[in-house]
């Protein structure tokens, strides 16, 4: 059984606590430290003692574990909102619990379009998988010399959603899809890659998968003598794990991100500086998304009041009766036509570097 950690990080030691739940795998815990630092900095203007309760089980939790975690969350006294859980699958598993308990659930990283219909108390921060798939398709189509691709996808909501988005985009751009191969964490990727190559050698590989599968597929393609670009969705952007698995093939990997640390706006620069000061590494897209999720809830508490309904009303009003919230990743609303800031990064010497829109490589 995975170890359970329940850590309450209080910003102020007050009797009347307002609690935000943070439900992510254990590797996300540092986000709390960054958020706490920013909240403490704003404490002079903040009359509310806001605390963040952190509940983590480790990586890749099954959906039933996510449900149990959500049940623990809603039982916490003073809980006003939750940021999480993990990716699309975990967030979808937990959504019924929060909707029953009428607690706002802000999902920073899940891209599954199913999250939009998970319930009125579930708010999806990341763009839909169809949008991301379309972005990936357009990126591949824009690369010179790419006429055919092979698609690998994890057989869950994230992978399937991205698969459908990419497939539609490739069809629109006239790119030949040689094969669509379902994979799982326990799959024999070598066989699946070899099998896929039987249907043709692609000009590029698209991976709608996590970092482990993406890195392994990139390495296998390089081993089989196919040094083609491997374009992955946001789920693969877990550094340095992706680089470690891909090894020499890492530099052939392109990853979609919702934000890049080299963004020049002042908010992004301040966030990067704070992140590096506290955690001694450069933040990636998921770091920024999770940070925006926490700070958006904090802002909602300050603006609308420390009640779940007030926070949910505030989130729904963004872009309508209220201006969009200006986060590190850009203006945030929860409207269907919300503009997205997708960025394509390329791994280079272990770092994720923004790909200029006119860069051919």
């Amino acid at each position, binding site marked *: 059984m995975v170890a359970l950690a329940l850590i309450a990080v209080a910003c102020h030691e007050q009797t009347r606590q307002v609690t935000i739940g943070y439900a992510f795998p254990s590797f996300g815990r540092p986000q709390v430290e960054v958020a706490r630092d920013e909240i403490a900095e704003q404490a002079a203007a903040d009359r509310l003692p806001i605390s963040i309760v952190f509940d983590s089980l480790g990586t890749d939790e099954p959906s039933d574990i996510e449900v149990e975690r959500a049940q623990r969350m809603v039982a916490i006294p003073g809980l006003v909102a939750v940021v999480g859980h993990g990716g699309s699958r975990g967030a979808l*598993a937990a959504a019924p619990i929060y909707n029953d308990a009428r607690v706002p659930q802000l999902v920073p990283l899940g891209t599954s379009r199913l999250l939009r219909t998970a319930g009125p108390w579930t708010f999806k921060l990341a763009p839909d998988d169809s949008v991301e798939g379309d972005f990936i398709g357009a990126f591949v189509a824009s690369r010179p010399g790419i006429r055919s691709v092979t698609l690998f996808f994890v057989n869950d909501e994230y992978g399937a959603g991205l698969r459908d988005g990419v497939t539609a985009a490739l069809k629109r751009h006239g790119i030949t899809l040689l094969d669509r191969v*379902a994979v*799982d964490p*326990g799959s024999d990727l070598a066989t699946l890659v070899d*099998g896929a190559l039987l249907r043709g050698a692609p000009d590029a590989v698209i991976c709608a998968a996590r970092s482990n599968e993406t890195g392994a597929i990139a390495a296998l393609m390089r081993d089989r003598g196919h040094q083609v670009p491997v374009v992955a969705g946001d789920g693969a952007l877990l550094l340095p794990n992706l680089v470690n698995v891909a090894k020499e093939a890492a530099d052939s990997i392109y990853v979609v991100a919702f934000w890049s640390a080299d963004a020049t706006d002042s908010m992004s620069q301040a966030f990067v500086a704070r992140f590096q000061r506290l955690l001694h590494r450069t933040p990636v897209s998921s770091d920024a998304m999770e940070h925006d999720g926490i700070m958006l809830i904090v802002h909602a508490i300050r603006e609308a009041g420390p009640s779940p309904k007030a926070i949910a009303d505030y989130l729904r009003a963004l872009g309508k009766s209220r201006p969009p919230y200006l986060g590190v990743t850009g203006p945030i609303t929860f409207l269907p036509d919300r503009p997205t800031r997708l960025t394509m990064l390329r791994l280079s010497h272990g770092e994720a570097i923004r790909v200029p829109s006119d860069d051919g490589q």
Partner: protein
Amino acid sequence: MASSPTGVPTSWLNIRRFSTLLLVGIALYATTFPIYFAVHAGRSASELGRRTEHVNDLYGTLATRSRALSVAVRLTRRPIPADAAGRSRFASTLRSQVNAQGTRLSPGNFAEVPPSMRVALARVDDHVTRLQIMLLEYAALLELGRLPEAEARQADIDGVNLALQDDLALAQRLGLQDLVKNSSALRETGRLGVQGVLWWLAIGITVVGITLWVLWRRVNRPLRHLEAGLDRVARGDLDVRLPVLVDDELGRLLTHFNQMTEVLHRRAQDQGRFVAAGELIAGIAHEVNNPLMAISALVSNRLAEGEPVPAEVREELTQVLRQARRAGRLLSGLLRFVRPDTGRATTVDLNLITRESLDLISYRFQVEEVELDEGEALVLPMVQGNPGKIEQVLVNLLSNAADALKEVAPPRLIRVRCNLEDEVVRVTIEDNGPGIKPQVAARLFYPFTSSKGDKGTGLGLYISREIAREAGGDLRLGTGSLGGACFVLTLLVARTADGAPQPAAAAGPTPESKAVPASRITDLAILVVDDEPAVRSPISRFLRRRGARVEEAGDGLAALDLLKSHEFDVILADVRMPRMDGVGLYLTIERTHPAMMGRVLFLSGDISQLQDLSLGRIPSNRMVIKPVELFTLEDAIADLLATAS
């Protein structure tokens, strides 16, 4: 519980609020039943059905996918085609079969699954997905021609498929257990529902009992007290006082009842004293009227007889006569005011009644330095109404004005004006007192409203207005010019049979008139019967001087003796006499001398007897009230004879 000004505890829960709460309670009681069932039983059943349906759908989807993959697994057990092309077709078929089963189930679906089944179904989902991937791997190995590996992978596929079937069976077993458990829960819910209904009924019966008890205590009991009190009042018991336990609506009703019976009780006591005073006054009047009659007759005779009297003595005798007559008028007025009123009279000589009302209260005006302004005398026609009652109204208004003037320093003025306007006579009585306060004016004619505080009963003006309205008129508050209160009494002019205004009676002869009229009783034989010689003697002397032949008797029996030996034209008899009074004499004459029945004239100093007599066999026009002017007496004798003949 607070107290009202009367000391009775004030309850927040008055009857209106209690009724409202009762209705709300009944509504809540009635609506809570279905709400309870909807929430407790209906919601549970609905939730149970929804979850069961969800589990069934989820299990059905997984079973369908599992069965489809089992078909693919069976394909892998077939001999592998020897040629590459055959293997490729075989792999293609296998891939199509596998890809048709789609992706793994959404984790959102598992959130609705009972925890006991969640792991088993999730494992089934994982196995299905894993089996899909392994079949795809198997197909890839076939296409790659890596047949030994494909055969090894086939064994793995069988293992996973076996585990899948086991987990599917486990999920099915857990599902059935969950169904049984849910059925038990549903039965338990039903049992609790029945239990709840019983409790609810028990609570309802208890609440109904308490409500009935409160109703009995707060409504029924006071009503029974009120009913009993009204019965006692109807039987004449004005001492009844009802217990007032709570100052709610019924409590206030009982308080008003007690106040009214108390007022009625005081009024009855006043009325009793009033009647007793009337009787005393009547007795006194009889005793005083006889001496007054004697004085008046003696002085009249002395002044009328031809013997010379010095001017100074004549003046003094005239003064004595005037005062005696004045005292007589005053006594007559008092007797009339205090006598029981039959209410039968329908016309009023307002000239006379007004004069007499003023006479009654004139002494008070003098003592309290009240100046009376009667204005110019006006001869008014007769008006509709009862004289006694109208006099009561006028005396009440004048008395109220005098009371009001006590609060102001002299000069104190009361102005009385009578006006005739077409069909209506208007009597205005105003004063220069403090006037009526606006807050009192609005309720001035309501019962129990008084501007005199505890000194008044609060019924005087109410009764006065009722009397005026009974007579077809009205009594209202007017606007005067003296700055004080102003009351206007309006009365309808009485009409004769031909519709003309009925004139007032002509004024009687002036008592002090010095002109001696011609005698109307010359040579008449008159028997004067009176027990008091001081009265009998001067009357006899006057009658003789006027030419009559007069005999005297001291009582009825003496008169009867005289009747045996004498014949009389007229018998003038006092009513109250010893041995045989005037009535006894009259009734005896009826038997012994019926021809004399129409020739008996009665004298009485007690006007209160008039009513009794007039109700008897003695005609009312035979009564002459002492003290009477001797010339008036002469006229009465002459008129009686004229009528009798």
